[in-house]
């Protein structure tokens, strides 16, 4: 085993702040309240930060280290089915797709939510419908993300949740 630093502090802070904010807004906070809007603005800020960090952040935070690739994703899916283990130091190909999915969905949630508050779209139905469908999609994605992280932790024996807390992965030689 070698212990390697993978996630920089900003990636981890981004991840867990986003977890708190999204869970808060989707599950707990009254969506008619001002707090719902403030938390929404924080999430928009987090997504914007992550987009910038994807270019200037730590090595494994950069988009260049996890480009979307259908071919690699299929390969990883095959590994998951067959039980063959190949270690990805940073984001796995399927993990990468999930990140792009979540960032895009959160951006859509933020945009539609903000539109609902504007003069132009006040009282208009469709931004709210987009907002709700996108939130449902994000919730489904989060559940899938959590199951995938648990499954991959068992399959590869690399503790992924711990790595997102400490920043370090224990990788096999």
């Amino acid at each position, binding site marked *: 085993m070698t212990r390697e630093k993978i996630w920089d502090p900003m990636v981890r802070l981004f991840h867990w702040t986003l977890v708190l904010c999204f869970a808060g807004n989707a599950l707990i906070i009254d969506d*008619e309240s001002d707090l719902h809007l403030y938390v929404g603005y924080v999430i928009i800020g987090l997504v914007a930060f992550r987009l910038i960090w994807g270019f200037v952040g730590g090595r494994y935070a950069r988009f260049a280290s996890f480009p979307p690739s259908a071919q690699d994703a299929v390969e990883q899916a095959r590994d998951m089915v067959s039980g063959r283990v190949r270690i990805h130091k940073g984001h796995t190909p399927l993990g990468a797709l999930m990140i792009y999915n979540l960032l895009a969905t959160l951006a859509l949630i933020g945009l539609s939510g903000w539109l609902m*508050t504007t*003069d132009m779209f*006040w*009282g*208009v*139905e469709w931004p*709210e419908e987009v907002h709700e469908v996108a939130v449902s999609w994000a919730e489904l994605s989060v559940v899938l993300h959590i199951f995938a992280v648990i499954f991959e932790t068992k399959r590869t024996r690399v503790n992924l949740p711990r790595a997102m807390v400490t920043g370090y992965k224990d990788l096999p030689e």
Partner: protein
Amino acid sequence: MFKTTLTAAILAAVTATSAFATGMVELTEENIATITEMLTAEGHEVGKIKLEDGMYEAYTKKDGEKLEVFLDADFNIVKIED
């Protein structure tokens, strides 16, 4: 005695029914039309109408302000938030 009890029971039932009828907050086309007409007459530009906390909640614009008008089952304006 029996008659009195029966009368009382019927009265109570009728009262309860009528109270129930006026207590209903329901998003029927008719109710939406009523609210829209009423608020439009008061100078509101009426957008979507939803149910919130057992009241109607109409999203409107008036004099450039974004408002949420809350109405009870009898279409009385309970409160207006901006």
